[in-house]
């Protein structure tokens, strides 16, 4: 389960960012922000690669404590999921399905005629979906 989930706009500013409250929120913001370096690099490299339909970018980079995974939609909106490095039970497939769920929910947000693309996401439904994917802290 994730410790931080973020949605980043095409222009690389955050649309939504949520982290477990226990550890410094700022730290996760920095983690997500720095991971964009790798995302950018991967996106720019995608043109050459054969399969452009693969949205999942895989493990972006491992830090001592966390693993950062990335996903980019066709409209270049990025999803970043940070999981604890100690959580070894999490398989790549599960991360993928998390991203897929996130993408679906994000699509729903975008379909909302009252949502203005580029604004911060303030949807309760989206919030709920994200909550199910976060590490449950009591």
């Amino acid at each position: 389960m994730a410790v931080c989930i973020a949605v980043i706009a095409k222009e690389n500013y955050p649309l939504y960012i949520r982290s477990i409250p226990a550890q410094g929120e700022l730290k996760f913001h920095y983690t997500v922000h720095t991971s964009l370096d790798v995302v950018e690099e991967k996106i720019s490299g995608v043109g050459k690669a054969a399969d452009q339909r693969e949205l999942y970018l895989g493990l972006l980079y491992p830090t001592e404590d966390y693993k950062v995974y990335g996903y980019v939609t066709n409209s270049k909106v990025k999803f970043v999921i940070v999981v604890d490095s100690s959580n070894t039970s999490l398989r790549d497939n599960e991360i993928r399905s998390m991203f897929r769920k996130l993408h679906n929910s994000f699509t729903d947000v975008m379909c909302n005629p009252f949502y203005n693309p580029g604004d911060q996401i303030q949807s309760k439904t989206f919030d709920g979906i994200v909550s199910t994917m976060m590490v449950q802290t009591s």
Partner: protein
Amino acid sequence: MRPAQWDLPPELCCRPLAFVALTGLDVVYNAIHRAIWDAFCANRRADRVPISFKVLAGDHEYPKCRTKRTSYEWYIPKGIVKTGWMNKHLNLVPALVVLFYELDWDDPQWKEKQSECATKVEVVRTSLQGRNTKVAVVLIQKKTPLPPGEDLVASERASALCGACDLSGKSLFVLPHTDHLVGYIIRHQFKMGFFSELKQDTQNALKYYRTAYSLVHELRAHESNTLEIKTIAGFINYKICRLCFQHNTPLDAIAQFRKHIDLCKKKIGSAELAFEHTAWMSKQFQSFGDLFDEAIKLGLTAIQTQNPGFYYQQAAYYAQERKQQAGHLCSHEPGVGYPAPDPLETSSGALDFYGQRAWRQGHQSIDPPDTEKEKQGILAIQIKERDILHSELIIALLSNAVAQFKKYKCPRMKSHLMVQMGEEYYHAKDYTKALKLLDYVMCDYRTERWWSLLTSILCTALKCSYLMGQVKDYITYSMELNEVPEPEPDCDSASVITAQSLWCDRVSLAGNNEFTIEVQDYVPFVQCKAKFLSPSFHIDEPVQLHVYVRADCPHPLRFSKLCISLSNQDYNQYCLLEEAQKGKDILEPSTQENMCLVPGKTRKYCFKFVAKTEDVGKKIEITSVGLMLGRETGRYVYLNWRGGWGDAASSHEALQASRSFKRRTRLPDQQVDWDTVSVQSSTMIISRVPKISVQLTHEPPALSNEMYCMTVTIQSEEDAVAKDLKLTSGLKPGQDANLTQSTRIALNGSEVCDDSHPALLPDIPLGDLKPGQKIVKPLYIHCVSTGPRVLLFHVAYSVHATVEDKDITCKCHKDETVTVETVVPFEVAMKFVSRKFEHLERVYVDIPFLLMMDILSASPWPIELMDSEVQLASSMTAIDQPQSQVEGVTLQTNECASECFLLKCPPVQNGTSTVASGHYIISWKRKSVLGETSVVKTIVTLPHVMVENIALYVHAEMPSFGRVRESLPVRYHIENRTGLVQDVEISVEPSDAFMFSGLKQVRMRILPGAEQEMLYNFYPLKAEYQVLPQLNINLLRFPNISSQLLRRFLPSHIFVKPQGRNGDASIEAA
């Protein structure tokens, strides 16, 4: 079961291994003995010396030795090889017997133990009597031995023991079991690795180091030896990683390092010295980063996600941890001093073993030997840690990492690390550097729009600027952070005091009180939009400018001055709003009194000014809008919006607002929705709208070459006198250059223009025009070529006007353009025909022919032909006086006028030649209802024609008509035009319509220049148009002149009237 007879004995097949017996070990009940035994035989690798070990009891009975024969005389062997021999030497008789015995040098019962040991040795010796088996003694000791030569008791007792047991010194070994046996092996492996490296055998070195590394982690770790284990593990790890990089297997190096970190991460050791662990961890990462970087310099390629930067970063992270832990653990009471004597002092000044404590070197048991000493030692280390400049270490590591991430395209990571560096500088109280770094990266976060991160950086930067007394920066940051200037919380208290005095100094300094903030680089809490009400203003109306200001801060805000600078600075004085209304020129001073900004409400300020007449046609731009916070007399901040709009965030905000579907809530009157305010930062000053009418009267299209008349009617609708009226008219500039060549304009239409007339007549003075007055001006345009032309009529004048109680002289102008098509008035078709109106390809000398002219009107307007004239060239003469036959004819559209002239050509040389015919001149004019038009002469060049001499000329003389059954005399003249005598054969063919008398067929000779006459009397038989009997002429000398050619000169038909009845008047008349 006995082995089959042909089976090879197992002793033969196995690999012969030296047999070493270990005695004195209780491997079943004694754990230490068991460990010793395991060290010998468990996992013994093939590369070790091949030995077969066995544990035997101390009083084990070895096979008795037979007395050796001294000679083989009389010896009769019973066979060749005994069956038991191989087994005996493999498994029964050892090469060496090692006696293990537990005995410390300071054992209280040394004497007894020594003799017991000697007895045991003796037992073994006895049992092996007669054999060459060696005996060695190993003392298992609980205490770590002191370095050789230091322990006098030990050396003395060792020699005593050797004496008692009858052993050489080489056969006595000491095995301190506290060291755990593996420790010995690690040392061994490490040394092997090191020696291999000396031998440049790096592959084997790596192997030994790897073994050593795995053994290190088999050591039982407890608080007192953790440091030693980690130190050695770190050493070996460094060696392994370095060799891996050297072998170009960087992934192995990384894997090893990861394993190393995972294994050691949790081995913190003493909680009181936790900073030692983090320091060690930091160093591990740093040295790995160094190795990695070194390898890259030697040609290894790193990638974005795997580069030395990550290791430096982690090193920095641990260094930060260390600093924190040091802060916790080393903050002793001020009274606590460094312990004396220095527990970290050793007799040699250095440690004997890596990673041990100076105050208990060689101590191997779990508990410290001396708790007091231990305490002092820890205190000493803590106090030393306190003096370390952590920030420097952290910053150095961070800057290493920054350099790496820069190289591997990680700008955000780099920014993040620079923030950390800045924060570290802040902690280290180096505020200048901190601010410099933070300022540098703030811009990145601002453009990336990560407000959460920007806010945190701004807080630090604000504190820095506060503590440095950097007033301008402080204000800038607080503007962006939207904070109230008060002593910053969370600042180092001592720094606050110095900062406060600094602030006092700065504030008291005069001239230091003005700060300008260029907002486009920041996101301040006041927003501004300035706009001209229109993209253009006429000179006779005031220029209006609105400035919208909005505050986003939580408190109301008062400002003291709002000023706008425009590209023409003369107007700036009119666009100024000050608290004390001094300026008299402000046009609407009464509405502007409110200089307080209420959060979230947009306030509008209006300015008006009259532009100067010389600025007509120029652009006025808002260069900046300045908002002054504070007092001019005291300190103030000047927020400056370049271009009158926008900060670092507004472009995106504007985009979002434009996308938004949100309904704009109706705001109460005078309130403006911020997002709907558009920006218009420049305006054009354009000339006053002219109040005159310009009308053109003409009859298009123009005919080429005519003086086309266009009448311009200018009527004033001004309220005042329009002065200096000037008309510029003619071909509009910027068209095809050929048009300029073929267009003329004149004021006088009575004579045709020549090349001296221009295509554009500029500034025709027309004087002044009173209100309602009208001027009519005819102009004549002469177009040589056909096609469309754009003609321009530009009327300029000046007039006095009053704007906002100011008198100005406005220049006005009005342009009228018209496109005039030019067409040809008529087409002239010319042709040469014979007198029979047959088309002529060529004409014959001295034979008359006709020149026919057809004038086809192409003009939509009637054309009156005034005169026409043929000017013949010398090669042609007119037979009768040519008189115009079309004079006075008026041609409507598509009507055609024709005339013809009878001409002949005088003789030419060479028989044939092409000659020019001359010109045809038509004088004409347009028939216009508007007035008299001038006569235009159009000259048409007549076509060239081929003239030819002819040898024989024939022509007939006959009445113009005949009558049935009445004689019709026809006389043929045949002329010889050559200088030769011609033989001519003439015959007349019979015809149904005629009877005739005369020579039917004759042959004759005509002399040069002579003419022969032939007379025939035709008698018509039928009425109507009849074919005459055909005259055939054959020239015997000129066969190329055919009868057909000559026949062309003769009439072929004649009209025959019927015979009239007697008494018919009409016949009488005929």
